[in-house]
């Protein structure tokens, strides 16, 4: 077929496609001669032109007569006619037409956008050095230090800032180390005599750290809401969770702060006992000459290996509270890797039934008198053994509720308020227990790490036993507890050495993952669109197989048969109006239809359709062919009832 005849054929196909979309033609079944009337009825298109187009199609394409110019003129005519057909108003296509168009537009532009996004992500990651963090960071690492602007609002920004500054610090340290080529030696310098609490009790307000005790009085924090900080990664393998020790306090000063009262510090000897070992890997920010505490497992743990990278000359010490610390001659960020062994019964020793003998402890007088009030409130157990007393105290403080203070629960001091209102999370419970137990003559220490706070008590045999104040007495599993301890953790200040960067890793990893997911989704979407989103009569659709078309049409029926039921109902109602009889009166309706002035084919369709309704067959659950039959019944009945002819 010469080109212009093919062009004419396609142009006519487009005309039919548009007319079908506009609801002027049914989707198939009419020959070009039969299409003339519906195309030109009611002033749609000029009848002469339509007739001319059909005639030319017959003459040039079917008969193969006429010359090329004639075919071209006819194709132009068809194009003009097609342009006069309004855009689709057919309900089937109109309902999702704009959605399809929008999805299609997205689908067309999405691949470019995604490639651009990918390039941008890779560029960003390369520029910020995130690649090293993404795939190759073994497990976890930490960055630390407060945000430069003191805000905690944008965590990602803060993390990035610190990450950058610390990378430069590490670079500096490494170059220093290369120049000096110093060998690592372990020394035992004496750390400062007193360490104060790392727990500034009002989150985000105190600018202090444990190195700089605040001058102002420290208020007990009564907030129990969720803090903005996330959970801390366990520094030990096998994991120890939130139960590791970092800062240990032995006493309380007159301002109510927990302090390390004793002064004796001991150098740490690298040795081994053959007990099970735990491995830690942390990053800390050092400040020249100042001790920085690092996690330990128990008071009597033994350090078996210790490595710093870069290998600086560090002093590893153990303070009076049996907490480990390092002292460095220079400042900067450093990675530490060490291993500790302990076989103590620190976590699980039984509280003995030895007689309870109060030990001399030190408390400020005011706190002592307040604590006696609390002890009176608790009451001593009948059985006056060590185990019973500690258990009684522990039971009292472990059974707090997590709720805001009610009116009338304020007492003279924060300690009294917490201990008597019995509300608060781990840090409130442990601190109140700490003071009360000291007042009762039980040697007790307050232990804090970045997430959690708990106490340890000295048993009569001189060993220490951890006491955990769970958030909820019923909380069973460690995971649950970990979740709960994430609520209201003790500090809002960025303490050196303890901020995990896993979030950063995830964030940067997702930069790459997001475009990939988007790409996959878009490809899937486009595939679906090609099958479902097109009208029946577009020229491309001619090459589709029949089963494809059926699948598309069936897809349009998957609204649970509601549209079908509505269609059938409306059709039958139009018949009711024509014959003037309600179809609920079966025999009257039947007679009326029998005697109505309608073609026999329409009559048969009406009766069939009514039977289908009565039988309950108007459903898309049945065979697709039956559904199509019903649709076509409705179509032809509607043609008749609207005054058109019907075949």
């Amino acid at each position, binding site marked *: *077929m010469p080109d212009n005849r093919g062009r004419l*054929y396609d142009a*006519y*196909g487009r005309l*039919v496609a548009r007319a079908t979309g506009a609801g002027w033609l*049914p*989707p*198939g*079944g*009419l*020959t*070009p*001669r*039969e299409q003339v009337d519906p195309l030109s009825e009611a002033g749609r298109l000029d009848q002469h032109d339509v007739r001319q187009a059909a005639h030319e*199609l*017959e003459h040039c*394409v*079917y*008969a*193969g*007569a006429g010359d090329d110019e004639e075919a071209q003129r006819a194709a132009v005519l068809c194009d003009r006619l097609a342009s006069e057909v309004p855009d689709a108003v057919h309900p089937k296509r109109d309902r999702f037409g704009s959605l399809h168009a929008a999805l299609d537009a997205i689908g067309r532009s999405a691949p470019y956008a995604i490639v651009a996004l990918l390039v941008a992500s890779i560029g960003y990651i390369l520029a910020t050095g995130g690649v090293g963090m993404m795939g190759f960071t073994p497990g976890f690492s930490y960055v630390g230090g407060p945000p430069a602007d003191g805000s905690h609002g944008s965590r990602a920004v803060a993390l990035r800032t610190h990450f950058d500054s610390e990378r430069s610090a590490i670079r500096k340290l490494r170059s220093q180390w290369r120049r000096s080529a110093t060998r690592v030696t372990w020394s035992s310098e004496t750390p400062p005599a007193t360490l104060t609490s790392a727990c500034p009790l009002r989150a985000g307000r105190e600018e202090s750290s444990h190195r700089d005790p605040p001058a102002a009085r420290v208020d007990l924090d009564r907030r129990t809401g969720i803090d903005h900080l996330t959970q801390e990664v366990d520094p030990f393998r096998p994991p120890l969770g939130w139960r590791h020790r970092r800062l240990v306090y032995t006493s309380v000063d007159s301002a109510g702060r927990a302090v390390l009262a004793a002064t004796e510090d001991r150098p740490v000897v690298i040795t081994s006992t053959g007990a099970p070992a735990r491995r830690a890997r942390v990053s800390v920010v050092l400040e020249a000459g100042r001790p920085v505490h690092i996690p330990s497992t128990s008071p009597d743990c033994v350090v078996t290996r210790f490595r710093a990278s870069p290998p600086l000359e560090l002093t590893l010490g153990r303070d009076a509270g049996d907490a480990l610390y390092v002292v460095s001659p220079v400042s900067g960020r450093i990675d530490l890797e060490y291993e500790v062994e302990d076989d103590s019964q620190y976590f699980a020793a039984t509280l003995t039934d030895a007689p309870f003998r109060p030990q001399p402890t030190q408390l400020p007088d005011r706190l002592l008198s307040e604590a006696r009030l609390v002890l009176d409130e608790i009451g001593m157990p009948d059985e006056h053994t060590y185990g019973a007393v500690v258990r009684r105290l522990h039971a009292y403080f472990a059974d707090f509720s997590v709720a805001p203070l009610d009116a009338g629960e304020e007492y003279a001091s924060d300690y009294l308020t917490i201990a008597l209102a019995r509300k608060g999370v781990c840090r409130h419970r442990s601190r109140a227990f700490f003071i009360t137990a000291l007042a009762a003559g039980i040697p007790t220490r307050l232990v804090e790490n970045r997430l959690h706070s708990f106490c340890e008590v000295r048993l009569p045999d001189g060993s220490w036993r951890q006491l955990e104040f769970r958030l909820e007495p019923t909380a069973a599993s460690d995971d649950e507890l970990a979740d709960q301890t994430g609520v209201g953790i003790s500090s809002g200040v960025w303490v050196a050495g303890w901020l995990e960067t896993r979030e950063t890793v995830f964030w940067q990893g997702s930069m790459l993952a997001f475009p990939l997911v988007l790409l996959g989704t878009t490809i899937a979407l486009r595939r679906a669109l090609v099958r479902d989103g097109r009208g029946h*009569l577009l020229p491309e659709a*001619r090459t589709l*197989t*029949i*089963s494809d*078309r*059926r699948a598309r049409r069936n897809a349009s029926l998957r609204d649970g048969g509601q549209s079908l039921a509505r269609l059938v109902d409306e059709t039958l109602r139009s018949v009711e109006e024509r014959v003037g009889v309600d179809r609920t009166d079966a025999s009257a309706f039947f007679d009326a239809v029998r005697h109505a002035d309608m073609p*026999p084919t329409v009559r048969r369709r009406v009766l069939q359709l009514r039977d289908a309704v009565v039988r309950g067959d108007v459903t898309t659950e049945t*065979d*697709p*062919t*039956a559904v*199509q*039959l019903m649709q*076509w019944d409705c179509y032809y009945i509607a043609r008749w009832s609207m005054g058109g002819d019907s075949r």
Partner: protein
Amino acid sequence: VNDANATEQHVDRSAIAARAREIRAAVARRALGQDEHIESLLCCVMAGRHALVEGVPGLGKTVLVKALADSLGCRFRRIQFTPDLLPADILGSYVYQPGDGSFVLRRGPVFANVILADEINRAPAKTQSALLEVMQERQVTIEGETLHLDPPFFVFATQNPVEHEGVYPLPQAQLDRFGMRLLIDYPAREDEIRILQLHHHDPPEVPSILSPGEIAAWRRSMESIAVSEVMTGLVVRILEATRDRSGVMLGASTRAGLDLIHLARARALLHDRDYIIPDDIKALLVPVTNHRIQLTPELEISGLSVVDLLNDVLRDTELV
């Protein structure tokens, strides 16, 4: 020269169309309300295809075929098929002549131009296949002697779809030999009124209009009818649609497609065209293919007929 030929053909074609209109009018006066079927049967005559007419008793099947045969001016025989009909009864046999003691061939009713095989499904398979062989080969073999039939030769068979007792339904392979199967339905109300008004008198006679020679000339002029590739594409699309439908056990064969195009050319000639158009295919699809398609039993039980299915196919296919 080409122009002269074209003009001559054109004139020829117009004359044929005019004669065809004449025949249709004459037959339609006798067989009221069956215009569609008359046209289909005329197509069969032109294309040299046999036809099977199906319908319940009393709808004028025989009247239709008889009227057409009369108008064609051909020798017409009617064979009433019964369960005890033997092949020799329709083909003929050698009969002993007591006078000279020789055997003389007595030709059976099949030696005619138009044969009405009434209630073909009442005869046993042996007799049916004898007739079907004649239909295929257009020759008869009796006692080893082969006799050619005079052209034209058509068989219009009728069968009654209602009765099931004592019938031998035609197998699918034999049904395929018929170019078309016409399904005679009850007449429309107006037609029925006219039939009742007219036919209580003597029905009008149908004059013989054509001659066998003319029919052969028609067939020759059918050769000039063009079939564009668009039309073959349309036919293939329709055939594929009948095969792809769910519930179809046996779709339309390629022979159905060949017959469809062949008969469409005949229809084009009847309508004074030298090319076929989708309207031809649309008009002929149901009669040409309805007996060549088998539905699955489930679909048949659900009440869907082959005709419904074919109408669906037509409606779902763009006939452009």
